[in-house]
């Protein structure tokens, strides 16, 4: 007697679905490869400090498009990986530290510490090609920036 409903095929299809969903769920908590840059913005020319380098053109253009300062110099750059189970602390300077936690689904929690105290906490979805920037003013009409971006592999 011919079966109207192919239960065997449906069972196989259900197994394929659960496998695909498991892969999707697994990839949703994938590790994040990030880059953090400590940038100094000023309208003056580059000072004679060998530790300062020109920030890359893409970041410079983006910062110029939003902020008033003309020149942007990279003070420090750190590349790191954040896994879902453990936040990552990264020292950007003697006074500045950040902590990044992978919340899954490309979301991160970014904490900025100044002189050991948490200054600001931000939760954000981070996308490839986009920047998450924590910024504030500094002395002599300059500004500091912590630029967080996703590293594409």
């Amino acid at each position: 007697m011919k079966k109207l409903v192919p239960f065997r095929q449906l069972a196989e299809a259900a197994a394929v679905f659960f496998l695909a969903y498991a892969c999707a769920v697994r990839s949703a908590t994938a590790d994040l490869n990030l880059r953090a840059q400590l940038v100094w913005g000023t309208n003056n020319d580059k000072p004679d400090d060998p530790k300062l380098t020109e920030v890359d053109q893409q970041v410079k253009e983006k910062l110029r498009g939003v902020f008033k300062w003309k020149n942007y110099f990279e003070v420090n750059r750190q590349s790191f990986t954040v896994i879902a189970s453990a936040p990552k602390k990264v020292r950007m300077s003697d006074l500045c530290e950040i902590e990044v936690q992978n919340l899954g689904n490309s979301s991160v929690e970014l904490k900025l510490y100044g002189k050991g105290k948490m200054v600001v906490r931000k939760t954000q979805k981070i996308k490839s090609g986009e920047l998450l920037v924590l910024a504030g003013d500094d002395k002599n009409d300059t500004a500091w920036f912590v630029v967080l971006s996703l590293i594409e592999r």
Partner: protein
Amino acid sequence: MINHETEVKLQACLDGELSPGEATTLETLIAGDPDARSLFEELRATRTLLAGNELDLKLPDTREFYWSKIRRQIELEERRTPAGDGPKPVSAPWVRFLTPAGALAALVVLVVIALKNSDASPSELALEDSHEIETPLEETSSFSFRSEAAAMTVVWVDSHRE
């Protein structure tokens, strides 16, 4: 005088329906009984006349053609309802194909929706920019804004510098 039974036997003898023993007995009777002989002759004459003057019944078709028509009709009926097969559901072939294909298509749609909602791939655009911001220090405040043109989210920390 012959009785009715003898009359019937005489007719049966003419038709060849008597056994050899009965036929011999009846022939003896016919030879010895004038009434039996007279009736036997009369019946034989009638039988001869009838057989010789029977009208021929002609069919409109020849014998071969007539029976071939019947054979063709039987074959036609056999082709319409093959022997041994019961009635089949009209939808059986497409149901066998479409049911698993439809289930597979539904699964593909579900997987795509699951992947889209989970935002698994880093290269995909985020659907929503959910965010939280906290500034615990009393002497600082902050505000957040986004520049779509620069593809950048900024949190400005104001330390109330004078």
